[in-house]
């Protein structure tokens, strides 16, 4: 339920701010930037390999991102890490708990296709490589804890819209996987030691998105602040279904360098 209240609210607030201040801004003058952000994340997931029950929980997410612009081309490399704690959404009064450690590497190549006097719209491809360790504690008398390892390498279209606001920039990103390789365990991690079950996937069996809406301040300064609302979803129609949604609100610093734009 928290998603229902949080995410649209944040999105609408950001959009309102964007429209109200559009006339005050200019584009960022630097060609490269490096940012580090962290903040709370809220997630829900269902991994039928571990349990038929959906789980919900909170955690901490951190992200490092490098952006580079060269002419009309933009590249971005990002590393994400998150630690989450889940509890069962089933009303069974059990001690079922989960801990998850997730990591992702995202490489994006975009080309400006719609540059206006202030805003820039870019489109291209995104490669998203992500993996996770899910440690599931069952409610059996022995409190058995079992690990499940999953991983995905996904490729799909990506778009970015950059709009000057508050002397900085509002940036919206969206990527959607189309094809890739998935490793979703049939059973616990012991089997993974024997043979990873890699499977080619397409949009018919794996759907998802990776979207963010962020703000970068002090566009003319080398060091500034930034905040980002980040949402991810994955729905893998494996024999044992895997579904996950997560949202994160992170903030941190951005350092800009490289030659400036004319």
């Amino acid at each position, binding site marked *: 339920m928290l*998603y*229902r*209240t*949080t*995410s*649209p609210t*944040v*999105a*609408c607030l950001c*959009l309102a701010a964007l429209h109200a201040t559009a006339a005050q801004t200019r584009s960022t003058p630097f060609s490269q930037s490096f940012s580090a952000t962290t903040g709370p994340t809220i997630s*829900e*997931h*269902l991994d039928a390999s571990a*349990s*038929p*029950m*959906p789980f*919900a929980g909170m955690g901490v997410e951190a992200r490092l991102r490098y952006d580079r612009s060269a002419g009309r081309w933009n590249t971005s490399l990002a590393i994400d890490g998150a630690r989450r704690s889940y509890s*069962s*959404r*089933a*009303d*069974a*009064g*059990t001690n*079922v708990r989960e801990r998850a450690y997730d990591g992702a590497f995202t490489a994006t190549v975009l080309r400006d296709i*719609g540059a206006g006097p202030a*805003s820039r*719209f870019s489109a291209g491809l995104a490669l998203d490589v992500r993996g996770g360790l899910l440690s599931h504690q*069952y*409610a*059996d*008398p*022995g409190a*058995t804890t*079992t690990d499940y390892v999953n991983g995905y390498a996904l490729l799909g279209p990506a778009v970015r*819209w950059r709009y000057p606001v508050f002397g900085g920039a509002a940036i*919206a990103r*969206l990527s959607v996987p189309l094809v890739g390789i998935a490793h979703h365990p*049939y*059973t*616990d991690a*012991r*089997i993974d*030691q*024997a*043979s990873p*079950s890699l499977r080619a996937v397409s949009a018919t069996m794996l759907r998802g*998105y990776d*979207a963010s*809406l962020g703000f970068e301040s002090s566009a003319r300064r080398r060091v500034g602040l930034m905040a980002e609302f980040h*949402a991810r*979803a994955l*729905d893998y129609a494996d*024999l*044992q279904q895997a*579904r*996950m*949604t997560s*949202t994160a609100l992170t903030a941190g610093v951005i350092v800009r360098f490289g030659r400036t734009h004319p």
Partner: protein
Amino acid sequence: MRTRRIVAFCLVAVSAACAGDLVGPPPATDRASLFDTVWREFDLHYSFFQLKGIDWAAVGARHRAAALAATSDRAFADELAAMFAELRDPHVSLTAFGPGSTVRYIAPFDTIPTHFSERSTLTRYVPNAATTASGAGHIRYGMAAPGVGYLRIASFLGQGWSGEVDEALAALPGATSMIVDIRGNGGGNRNVAIEIAGRFADRTRTFGYLRYRSGSGHGDFTDYVTQTVDPQGTRKFSGPVYVLTNRGDYSSAEDFVLAMRVRPQVTIVGDTTGGASGGPIVRELPNGWTYELSQWIEYTPDKQVFEGKGLAPDIQVVPTVATFAAGRDPVVDQALGLAAAANR
């Protein structure tokens, strides 16, 4: 301006989608849903359908109506347990009402008299037996005869205590041969069993194979996954070893037997083991119940299945009512005779 509106709309749509019901609501907890969940989980993961010739669809059809007609949780649990019992697998169990409520199949080896008593054997053959102090006292040890050490390992339950065998071996410096008595050992932690076997290993050896269920078909399994035992621990024992077994040994105790018998100078003495090797996994239901089921098939080094058959000893010695009544343990007697011959 139009582009801007489209993008703004997309942003709101994406953000709203984050809030959607992708993950879905918790599964239903009515009896039909619970039954179907359990049935399907077994259908996807249980490893012995083909080996035991079980028509799982027919089993489910037989029990579903009765399960749904159950008038109480207790009656529903009983019907699930009855369905589980058709698998004839002691690694299949149901825990419906918290600790102490676990119900599992009673296998023939659970009820066959073994005519073995740890207490009387220790009293007669190792009267000065000590208990390891470095852990939770999982091992009893002593000298059963001049030059013949004796280790009693009644269970492999728990974790991280395999080092206790180092303490026992260190306390038996005069032992040139060793009796390892695991009779009645119902298994426990497989890692502990193999780590202890590593104290007797001369080099890395393959002691068996596992194949895991890997797909929805009852014959879908991984390739053979090699199982090895490696030398480990601060103490090694390289002399002759006599592992005492009976029908009460199963699960991880059978892994121990497999890991021991691949080494030369190890002799298995006693009766055939129980033959339950499934490697259980835990699953859970939305109502908080948990259950276990076998997920693999284990094979001997020559790729023979021993589920339901057990591992035959090298030298079969089966105690009787008469030997038990006389306070004798013919299995230990046999091992002592072999050790004496080896020490000569």
